[in-house]
């Protein structure tokens, strides 16, 4: 099962290495990691998307993360009401003939073209991972020359409604 786990960590040197090293050593399957500063100086926030086989493994993962000296707080937010976002840059082959057509494909995704050259376009898209997957699928026929994704970063919403499952179904 796929889980989104966030960790606030002290920004000491080597903390990312320690955390990811632990996950690799203990055979946790990391799909993506994103790291960056938080609202507090000296504290960073990590967001992991992981694939775990069962609840026992999941519990191990959160415990092993918590055990790290620099980790302040670990939260499995998968079952919370959350906003999750990822950014992707996609370079597709394109000529003047199909530029407008591609524009038509990406508009519903609220993606934008941020670079144009004779034979390619760079598209920037932000959203939940599934939306990005969908756009990539649609762009594939034009020839994807380069692709990079930031990995998911996520937050709990300000308000936590009773039934969050449905809401999150949109994310995964």
């Amino acid at each position: 099962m796929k889980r989104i786990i966030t960790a606030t960590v002290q920004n000491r040197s080597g903390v990312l290495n320690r955390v990811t090293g632990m996950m690799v050593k203990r055979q946790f399957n990391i799909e993506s990691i994103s790291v960056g500063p938080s609202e507090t100086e000296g504290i960073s926030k990590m967001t992991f998307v992981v694939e775990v086989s069962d609840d026992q493994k999941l519990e191990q993962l959160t415990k092993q993360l918590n055990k790290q000296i620099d980790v302040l707080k670990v939260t499995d937010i998968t079952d919370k009401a959350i906003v999750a976002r990822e950014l992707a840059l996609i370079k597709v082959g394109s000529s003047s003939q199909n530029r407008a057509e591609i524009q038509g494909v990406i508009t519903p995704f609220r993606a934008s073209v941020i670079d144009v050259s004779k034979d390619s376009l760079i598209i920037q898209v932000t959203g939940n991972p599934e939306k990005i997957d969908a756009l990539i699928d649609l762009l594939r026929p034009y020839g994807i020359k380069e692709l990079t994704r930031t990995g998911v970063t996520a937050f709990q919403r300000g308000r936590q409604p009773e039934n969050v499952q449905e809401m999150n179904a949109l994310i995964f």
Partner: protein
Amino acid sequence: MKVEAKPKELAVEKKTTTGADVFIRSLVDADVDTVFGYPGGAVLPIYDALYRANAPFQHILCRHEQGLIHAAEGYARVTGKPGVVIATSGPGATNLITGITDAMMDSLPVVIFTGQVGTGVIGTDAFQEADIIGITTPITKYNYQVTDLKQLPRIVKEAFHIASTGRPGPVVVDIPKNISQEITVDEFDTAFHLPGYQPTVKPNPLQIRKLADALSRSERPLLLAGAGVLFADAAKELKVFAEKYQLPVTTTLLGLGSFPGTNELSLGMAGMHGTYTANMAIYECDLLINIGARFDDRLTGAIKHFAPNAKVAHIDIDPAEIGKNIKTKIPVVGDAKEALKQLLDVNAKITNHDEWLQSLNSKKEDYPLWYDRSEELISPQWLIEQVYEVSNGEAIVTTDVGQHQMWAAQFYKFDSPDKWVTSGGLGTMGFGFPAAIGAQLGRPDELVVSIVGDGGFQMTLQELSVIKERNLPVKVIIINNEALGMVRQWQEKFYEERYSESLLTENPDFIKLAESYGVKGVRVDKEENVPRVLEDVFSYDGPVVVDCRVVKRECVFPMVAPGAGNHEMIGVTK
């Protein structure tokens, strides 16, 4: 001019204080009494400061960095205080890796200081540069590279704190050469705050209640005691608790001594080479209370057969150990001593489970540990029994890894805590002898016996220099079976006697070897001579190496074969 040193004042003039002086002072402030170290380029400033400081701790120069770290582990194991190691950068540091891993696996508090090339050249593959932070990240509880001298005293203090609190473990502090050379007059702030590291010591009373309730309803309860009991200094509480509720007790390999081996309620060690009674007790119990053990696979055997009828309760200071290998009904996060005290305060109903105790007692009688006693030659198991007898069961025993280790665990009945020093989790050959050096330095007035194999002793025997130099009265008992015995045993049982590279036909003459180091050497090869030789050796005031020629074909029994359950032991009877 030399300043008169007051206690804890170092002979260093203020205006020439270097980072290395600051470092030495930090060790003194941490109450260090023994440092295991080996010099080299990157730590030359530190060794110079040491020379000038007249520091109130002893420095032990082992002859290989692996010796340093195992000695520090042995010291930590018997004193409860962190062992301290200093090594130079590059090869000095990488020579420590096996021991750091060993300390991590067996939760030993060790603080390791490594030299490093100057900060200006880190990352350029400079001479004797090794990425020791990268290398030790997975094998340390924590590690630091000092990049600012101002932080050094705080880091040293933090390192000792992290190594020795919660679940103990090794901490590495990497000190670049320019940091230890830097001249300073600064005062330092050593206050630290580790918001992400707050080990839970006091268990949740609700969980203790649940455990007490389960105990009052159990018909076949069993205690499993691990090294966590020893780290928490809780052997006394464990005994009171077990006796109050009449609970049979088994221990892990590393938990030996946490409960008196000769106590009526003791079932002996459990696991791969544990007693039949202990393993069957685990199989049959309906409540298994694990105190400070981590359900290692050598203890559990095949998980699907482990304690199949039991509700499992697990007391551990490390929450990540609870539920890691074995499904746990009653998790209790906390220190073993605190948990046992609370359990004793709760006053659960005392139930009568005489029938259970009787069934275990008859198993103990019907299926004791056994061996073939040879007439003339020395049976290794019998030899350990003799060591036990002649030392009145009071020695500190360190072992190496292999058959002799298992025989020592089986036949030396540890009645008191912190007298058993062995490499459990990593199973590190070469551990036993240097660990004995650390143990002897930590407890100078005790008899320290190092039981080693002829194979493993050859991995770290250069430390004979140290016992000679310091006149440490360590007694090395080589269980000489002219084989990598444990490997030979597995080849005999599981590889149809194809003894591939496991027979040591060209061992050195251990007597001459010892003598070349200036250490007394004795050989014994007949049963009848053993008691007298051991008496002489144990009463000799100085180090001795005893080359004991034992029956070569002996195997360690009983045994849980790989992949089998604990109830399927082989070699239970003759």
